[in-house]
């Protein structure tokens, strides 16, 4: 009886564990899916806002990508209609991708033929200052379907021109006819005959060419002789080279002479220095002699005053 109870208890415990595992699997998968979805929606990524202004945002939906060089760098978060009737396309750009947007960036909105709409950014100068957060820019709208009528009109013009060009009485057909007759004449008379219009003038050109050839042959001979005269063994160039060698030797000798003159000049400079010093000494000597002479003069004056025959020095006034 107790064995049966224990077995039942064990079975129920095993069932509870397996049920808990299944519930855990469900909770785990749901939590992982929710986190992945939040990550995919860019919830964990810091972003900055960019507002594109357009007259018509047809085809743009929430979630549309903003691409740069084919890579999605932002996502439309909302589309609003402003008070002045302009459409405001609010885009979230992740901060790590915002470096591709500059002050000078251009934004385009293009609609394809199958209804797909693309928002593209073009940054020509990546050295410009980065686009600030919350910036508002006009978007250039390029509609592929809007181009179709113009394209059809231009294509029709093109086809009309082509038809005119290829018609039997067109200028192109006349030109082709002329070319055909010219080629037939070339076959008959050769290209020179067609060019000059008659055989005699064509013959003259041939003779002129022959004479020109002969003249060229003579000029060739002259050139060979001139080469011999200039660059030959006894030519102008070897002699010029020898003259240059001699000139070099003369220049060496002149350099030696100049060195000697330099030494002489140094000696003369020293002599001039000595003479300047001597003249300074002479000035001192002269001042000494002058002083001595003044002393002798004062002494003679003193002797004359003390001498008996000396007359008193007087000054008579008139």
């Amino acid at each position, binding site marked *: 009886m107790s064995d049966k109870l224990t077995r039942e208890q064990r079975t*129920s415990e095993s*069932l*509870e564990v*397996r*049920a*808990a595992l*299944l*519930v855990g*699997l*469900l909770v785990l*998968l*749901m939590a*992982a*899916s929710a986190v*992945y*979805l939040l*990550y*995919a*929606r*860019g919830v964990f990524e810091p972003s900055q806002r960019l507002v594109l202004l357009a007259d018509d945002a047809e085809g743009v939906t*929430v*979630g549309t*990508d903003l691409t740069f060089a084919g890579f*999605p760098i932002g*996502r439309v978060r909302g589309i609003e209609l402003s008070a002045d009737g302009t459409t405001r396309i609010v885009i979230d750009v992740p901060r790590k991708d915002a470096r591709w947007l500059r002050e000078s960036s251009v934004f385009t909105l293009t609609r394809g033929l*199958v209804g797909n709409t693309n928002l593209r950014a073009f940054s020509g100068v990546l050295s410009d200052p980065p686009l600030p957060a919350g910036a508002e820019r006009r978007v250039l709208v390029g509609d592929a379907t809007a181009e179709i009528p113009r394209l059809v009109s231009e294509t029709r013009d093109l086809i009309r021109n082509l038809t005119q060009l290829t018609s039997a009485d067109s200028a192109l057909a006349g030109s082709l006819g002329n070319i055909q007759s010219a080629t037939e004449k070339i076959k008959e008379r050769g290209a020179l005959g067609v060019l000059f219009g008659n055989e005699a003038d064509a013959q003259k050109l041939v003779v002129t060419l022959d004479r020109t050839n002969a003249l060229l042959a003579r000029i060739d001979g002259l050139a060979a002789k001139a080469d011999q005269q200039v660059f030959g063994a006894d030519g102008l160039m070897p002699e010029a080279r020898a003259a240059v060698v001699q000139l070099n030797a003369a220049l060496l000798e002149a350099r030696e002479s100049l060195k000697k003159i330099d030494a002489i000049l140094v000696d003369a400079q020293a002599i001039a220095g000595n003479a300047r010093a001597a003249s300074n000494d002479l000035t001192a000597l002269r001042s000494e002699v002058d002083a001595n002479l003044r002393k002798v003069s004062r002494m003679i004056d003193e002797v004359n005053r003390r001498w008996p025959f000396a007359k008193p020095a007087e000054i008579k006034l008139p």
Partner: protein
Amino acid sequence: MTSLASAWSVLADLGRSALQWFAGWRRILMFSAKLLVLALSPSSYRGPNLVALSRHLVKDTAPILLWFTLMTSIISLVIIHIVVVTSVSYGLSRYALEMVVRVLVLELIPLTAAMFVALRCALPNAAEVAALHVRGAFDGLSTGSAEPLQREILPRVVSGMFSVLLLAVVSCVVAAVLAYLWVHGFTAGGFPSYTRTFGRVFSPELSLIFALKTLGLSLAVGLIPIASVLYDRPNPRVRASTELRGLVRLFFMILLIEVASLVGNYL
């Protein structure tokens, strides 16, 4: 005179049928509300109730989990291949992955899981409940006792709901991984663009509708067959059994949920 009387009787029959139909739905709704209240009560997950719930959870989910995942993987691979090849041939390969995610993860797999669980678990559970009902196991219900509900019915309802949720989530994850591998191969290089596509598809509104739809499908599969066999009165004029009528009600509700989700997603 006779034709007028027969017309009146036809109209009266129609009115009676409509009234019965609405009355049946009302009883099912009331019963579902009662069961949901019991499901939120902690006492339903104690003692013998927990053992019964565990037994039904394991019995209804574990045997079919692997097989259903394998089956949906094979079907997913076929659908992924068809969508990708068709998109490439029309030059629309950039939309292939988005279409695969929308078709498989959002629409087909939850619906398939609900139908599979309904046929594999919910109907047999309803038949068991009908048999118990015939034997008088739920005679106490009329007196207001919650004991039979907690012991016999709630585990079956919760296991049906749980089975739908688990099968749908596991198959969605497997289908998403298979779609990535089929398009990008065994490389991590396509992960950023794949994640971006996933994020673009699962906008907040669409994610909410997807969650509500899956929850609604699981509630319908868990509740409607059992409630039908308990509260649908035998109708001598209808040849179908009560289980079959429950299945019809279930398919009707699944159709309603699916249409509502499509309207919410794409209109």
